[in-house]
């Protein structure tokens, strides 16, 4: 145990004796992230969801539903297209849209009279984020609608009673809107103190708005983890060529201690490299800081999968040079396919699922979903088990390869 600790300390101390390498692991992905975010900010590729709406009701109430997507950032991300029900279905079947919302006849009426409201939303399973986004927005919008109904039922009825005369409508709407807001401020706190607050908010989805930056950010983190993991895995050849691995083998210690030391120090170093990027990114992207610790732990516990994968590459290669070449040749395509250079959401449909088969994609995707809000920290925990199992398998394989190669 004492020697395991000494081995971990040794790895850390050696890294700190070469702070530049440590810094580069961190600096390259961070720079890349910043560059990409600048490029994207300047009108680069964006995620766009195409929401088809077949409004069979065509009432005032039904028309407010698509309007849920017209505000703020959502307007940039979701394009709403009115379409007939049949055409919409066809287009969905072709995979030409993210989601199709069908508002049935009588929807407005049902809503106003508080009868069960039923709308149908079909989503495109080949796309990941966009349909989710649509559903989330709609759900929260409908929730909002329920509160609205409780407080403002009369005004809503008044609006629907109006004729379609456009000018008049907008004028009256403005008036009534003013009335609504007055009413909320006045009555709200007394009627439904906790709920009015929700009514008062602009109708955006719960959770974070899914921006390009948010989608890019996990990729940058994983890139840093990949680089750092590679740096640490290539330590195998340093140990071999500098003869220290040989010294290790002639010492009376179990090789398990060597591998445990490698694993734990990799874990700590990955955390060390990830932390500054996490903190910087959380500020920059605007992720709440209560997500910092789970994210860091995820990178430290799941990140060693990349280290273990690269370690297996290193120990299987014939020389340190070929190890480096193979590692580099593997790393860049993997980073690309695994969603580090651009998120899976921006990939062609056929390519996106491939990310799941890459070790880095396996670490990136759950973290991204966590950032987006698909699941909480417990979701990360669930995703961790198979990653850890794979890590252990890879390390044991590397160990066996080394044993076979070095003592014959």
């Amino acid at each position, binding site marked *: 145990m*004492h020697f395991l600790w000494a081995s971990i300390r040794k790895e850390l101390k050696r890294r700190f*004796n070469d702070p530049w390498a440590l810094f580069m692991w961190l600096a390259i992905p961070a720079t890349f992230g910043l560059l990409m975010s600048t490029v994207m900010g300047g009108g680069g590729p964006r995620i766009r969801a195409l929401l088809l709406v077949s409004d069979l009701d065509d009432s005032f109430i039904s028309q407010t539903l698509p309007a849920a997507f017209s505000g703020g950032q959502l307007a940039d991300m979701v394009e709403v297209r009115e379409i007939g029900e049949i055409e919409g279905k066809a287009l969905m079947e072709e995979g030409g849209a993210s989601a199709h919302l069908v508002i049935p006849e009588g929807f407005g009426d049902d809503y106003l009279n508080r009868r069960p409201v039923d709308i149908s939303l079909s989503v495109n399973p080949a796309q990941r984020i966009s349909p989710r986004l649509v559903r989330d927005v709609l759900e929260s919008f409908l929730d909002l609608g329920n509160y609205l109904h409780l407080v403002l039922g009369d005004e809503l009825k008044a609006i629907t009673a109006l004729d379609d005369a456009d000018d008049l409508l907008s004028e009256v709407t403005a008036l009534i809107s003013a009335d609504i807001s007055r009413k909320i401020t006045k009555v709200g706190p007394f009627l439904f103190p906790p709920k009015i607050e929700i009514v008062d908010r602009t109708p955006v989805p719960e959770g974070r708005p899914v921006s390009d930056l948010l989608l890019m950010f996990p990729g940058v983190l994983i890139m840093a983890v990949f680089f750092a993991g590679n740096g640490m895995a290539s330590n195998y050849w340093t140990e071999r060529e*500098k003869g220290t691995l040989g*010294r*290790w083998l002639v*010492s009376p210690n179990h090789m398990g201690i060597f591998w445990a030391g490698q694993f734990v120090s990799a874990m700590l170093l990955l955390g060390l490299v990830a932390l500054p990027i996490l903190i910087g990114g959380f500020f920059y992207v605007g992720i709440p800081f209560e997500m910092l610790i789970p994210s860091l732990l995820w990178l430290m516990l799941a990140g060693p999968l990349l280290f273990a994968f690269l370690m297996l590459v290193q120990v299987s290669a014939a020389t340190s040079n070929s190890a480096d070449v193979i590692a580099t040749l593997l790393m860049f395509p993997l980073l690309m396919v695994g969603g580090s250079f651009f998120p899976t959401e921006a990939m062609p449909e056929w390519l996106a699922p491939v990310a799941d088969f890459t070790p880095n994609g396996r670490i990136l995707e759950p973290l991204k979903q966590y950032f987006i809000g698909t699941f909480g920290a417990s979701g990360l925990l669930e995703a961790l088990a198979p990653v850890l199992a794979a890590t252990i398998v890879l390390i044991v394989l590397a160990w066996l390869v080394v044993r076979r190669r070095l003592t014959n």
Partner: protein
Amino acid sequence: MIEVKDLQKSYGELLAVKGVSFTARKGSVFGLLGPNGAGKSTVISCICGLLKPTAGTVTVNGFDIVGEAKKAKRSLGVVPQELAIYEDFSARDNLAYWGAAYGLKGRELKSRVAYVLERIGLQDRAGELPKNYSGGLKRRLNFGCGLVHEPEILLLDEPTVGVDPQSRERLFNLVKEERDKGTCVLYTTHYMEEAENLCDELAIIDHGKIIAAGTLKDLRAQVGESDIIQLSGTFDPIAVEAAILGLAIDSEILVLSAGTLVLAIEEAAAQLPAVLQAVSSTEAEIRETRLSEPNLESLFLKLTGSELRA
């Protein structure tokens, strides 16, 4: 104590060690003397458990190095021929780390590290990273790493290669000190002066086989009292052989080729003029003459017909 019995080791097709046996004892230095490629390092690697013997056995302090590796390894300290140190880890850290590898800790570890640093003359630069050291300093650190844990058995594989004479003297003293403390030292070298100076017992190894073994005295006896005369130049071997035999002196031709003549001969200094005259009479051209007292070099010459230092 190290006992090596009928040790064989092959690298694929190449049989590098062909049945080597010897015993190295507590409190003495056992030398393994041989030219490049003789198989010295391979033997060392088999003893310390880095390589698995192809055949034969190695026991270290009574423990089989294959079957009871952990127990056997515990008493070993190894100074490999190739440097085995972390270059990005200070000398002090290196020593402390390898000490910890053998279970040293706390105050004991600290005092051992300080002691070894002083003995290898690195105390003033202990905090520096070895990558900034000269080759000789790295060697000294490599040496220190092998004995920081006070092993009962020390395997030294050509520890003085590339070390300046002063440091070499220092390392010799360290080895002798360890021996006097009761350590069993196995020392490989291709410098016969080192072997003569340091070793209590010796084995001369060539092409993976021990060709002579015993104490220094035993080996000297094998060379006999003959001195060595060594001539280089251009010779006609048949004519030269006839001329030497015609001298009717007590001599033995060890090597005779178109470029070299080596003779074992008693009272060489007195006989040299006659030898030179006889060789010259064959119209040979003599470019260099060397005369030496009986030593391991001459034994090696005698046994193998070639020089130790190729």
